[in-house]
């Protein structure tokens, strides 16, 4: 992360440094919160169950992290390979189950002609 040019060298406190270093992420998070709320707020009550289930599937993006962590584990570290393997399995289950079940629910909203 680039240090912003207006960085004040006089404030040496830990918290200010942390904020300066992470200001981009902080912006990013705040925008994500607003966009997320804005997008969800327009969903009608009748679609709340599929929405909850779909959002649940999206939280399975944690799988990306599980894969990253698995790539760093040495091949003979069996404890971490096991834990990481279970993590990958659980993450995949979250994603696949979540999207399939949401799809199944939504399919019912289009009655067969």
């Amino acid at each position, binding site marked *: 992360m680039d240090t912003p040019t207006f960085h004040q060298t006089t404030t040496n406190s830990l918290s200010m440094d942390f904020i300066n270093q992470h200001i981009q992420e902080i912006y990013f998070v705040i925008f994500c919160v607003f966009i997320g709320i804005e997008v*969800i707020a327009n969903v009608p009550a009748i679609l709340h169950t599929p929405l909850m289930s779909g959002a649940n599937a999206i939280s399975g993006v944690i799988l990306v992290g599980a894969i990253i962590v*698995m790539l760093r584990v040495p091949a003979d570290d069996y404890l971490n390979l096991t834990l*990481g393997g279970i993590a990958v399995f659980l993450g995949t289950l979250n994603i*696949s189950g979540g999207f*399939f079940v949401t799809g199944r629910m939504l399919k019912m909203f289009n009655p067969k002609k």
Partner: protein
Amino acid sequence: MHAIIEIGYLIATLSFLGGLKFMSSPKNAKTGNAIAAMGMVLAVVLTFIAALTAVVPYTNLVIMCLAIAVGTVIGKRLSDKVEMTGMPQLVSLFNATGGGCAMLLGLVEANQMDVSTAILGNKILLIAGLITGAVALTGSIIAERKLAGKVKDRRTKAVIFSARILLGSMLLLPVLYFIGIIPIGFTAFMYILAAVAMVYGVLFVLPIGGADMPVVISLLNSITGIATAFAGFVYGNKVMIAGGIFVGAAGILLTLLMCKAMNRSLLKVLAGTFKKSTNGAVEEEQEIKEISISETAMSLSFAQKVAIIPGYGLAVAQAQHMCGQLQLLLEKRNTQVDYIIHPVAGRMPGHMNVLLAEANVAYSHLKEMDEGNENMAQYDTVLVIGANDVVNPAAENNPDSPVYGMPIIRAHESKQVIVMKRSMGKGYAGVQNDLFGLDNCSILFGDAKVSLQEILNQLKLI
């Protein structure tokens, strides 16, 4: 190479957003789901491609591919098999897997981390992700067990007290650790925290009433999202941060919407308290009029406008298909049939709509509560099937009632109300229903599915 992956992650992030956006109309929702799923596949594939540029042990790759294959197959099978009535349980279970993934990820990362050089910020993020993940894991499992009726509410002082102690220690322990008071390794400390957080998850959900479970599931869903975001910070991975935050924000918003629909504050839900009726002991004796199947069929055959108010009881009796048939038959006789749906009918907001959609009830027949209430006086007959608390007039005119203030469907304002019930047992909130004692209300006892079938048979003869 790096740029391509970053752009791919950006596309994945946008697909999540687009997917959620498309969920705002029943017509596009299916496309939205597919878009989000495609984005997810893209994000996972890109992570793999990025990995292959480095040297990765063969064993790790095999384990990962196996785990992904098995996870996909089991996820598909579980979602194909589930009954529509069991949907909320499954959503809760899948949420538990996400939380479990976040927790394990924290543990493995802590094992791998070079503790001497790792910066404090990363450790704190790792701890936050681990704790939120662990709470979501066990909390969601208890919520699922409760919805399935396998675990009862335990609102004892001991449970609530221990839960508070654990919550306090989850906040205090990391502080003590970083000051240097707890002289153990970082990894060992993480295992202890994981254990504490898992126990807390159980104790957190145990005291909360079964009726509040959807709110809790939505909240836990949000917590999993936040755990994902924390992990995203550790790796500086924007698709994880964005995905996690979207879910976190959506979960909190849905939680608040649900609380509003039930007129409960989130704090009261979490405290597990339900306002007790101040004069609970002196419940008035109600005079209840019973109605027979043939009288019901007769009344329906004379009606011009009929409304059906479905509740979870209808879903449990698997009577939604019968309901659909009744509607078709009445329509053939030029009777207008509407379904009026309370926002929290079923087990989750919108759950009832899913159940009725399963029975091929056209979207245009479903009326929301406000619309139904406006035209209530026009309905000749209102059938209340398996719903109880959502039609209780006490919510509007009895300040002593525990359901007071909850928005209701004003069935009592119609010309005639027929309530289908199995017995005089109380509803989810455990409150006497003032509707049953009113002059224009009668009760048809019996299993909703059987009753509906017989009404259908008799209607065909009339």
